[in-house]
């Protein structure tokens, strides 16, 4: 139990530190690199929550493809450090942070105070072969959503190619 607690607090500190550096770095490429580290840390948290397959998929999809795309776009444009990275105004900045904190507080309070309202019954355990059960659910109960996701990805891919071919885009026909 102690090892688990130490592991959780170590990863949580790692995550919070790098997420804070992500949003507060002036150079956008540094932000992208810190976000990659945040996602790798999140994969570690998922593994600790006994979602090993999702941890692997998170690393492959997010840290291995999406963030590579972000970093490639940033490096292609060679974006320098901006002089004023954050929006101006002390009052509006304070209000924004305050509203984000209030939202987090509401969500946490609701979750914490609602424990014990519904009678849960005996504590449930996760099955041993999570991947198999996950795939059975995905292909029987959520089959329609899965296929819809495939269609959506096709539409997104076609859309991205079209966006790059409009007049003034990167691959516009002259």
């Amino acid at each position, binding site marked *: 139990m102690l090892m688990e607690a130490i592991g959780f607090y170590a990863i949580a500190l790692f995550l919070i530190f790098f*997420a804070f550096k992500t949003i507060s770095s002036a150079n956008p490429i540094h932000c992208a690199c810190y976000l990659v580290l945040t996602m790798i840390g999140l994969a570690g948290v998922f593994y600790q929550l006994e979602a090993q397959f999702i941890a692997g998929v998170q690393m492959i999809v997010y840290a291995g493809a999406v963030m590579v795309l972000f970093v490639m776009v940033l490096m292609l444009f060679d*974006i320098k450090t901006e002089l004023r990275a954050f929006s101006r105004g002390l009052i509006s900045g304070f209000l924004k942070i305050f509203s984000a904190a209030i939202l987090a507080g509401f969500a946490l309070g609701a979750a914490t105070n609602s424990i014990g309202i519904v009678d849960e019954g005996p504590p449930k355990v996760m099955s041993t072969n999570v991947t198999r059960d996950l795939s059975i659910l995905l292909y029987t109960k959520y089959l329609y959503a899965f296929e819809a996701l495939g269609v959506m990805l096709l539409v997104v891919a076609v859309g991205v190619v079209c966006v790059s071919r409009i007049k003034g885009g990167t691959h516009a026909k002259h």
Partner: protein
Amino acid sequence: MPSTEVFLKIGLNHYLFLSAILFSFGMIAVLMRKNVIVMLMGIELMLNAVNLSFIAFAKELGNLNGQIMVFFVMTIAAAEAGVGLALAVSVYKKYKELNIRSFEQLRG
């Protein structure tokens, strides 16, 4: 002073706390940063925080539907990141400017 049990026994509340902190960081990034691509990164951070809370609930209730939802959220987030980056690239090519404050007025 609460007992040390609260800190040593890692339960659902700990993961939800972590998820709320990450979500608020993402929200602050979207509200306060001016660079379009950093705002997109804030959106990705928010989606990851939501994934974390789904998986925490899935473990707590022994219910695998939370993990299925994470699949879908991850896929949609990846697709949306692709589209957002394509649009950002087009905007940069035309206006040579990635500061969102200069796109606030509808013009031309």
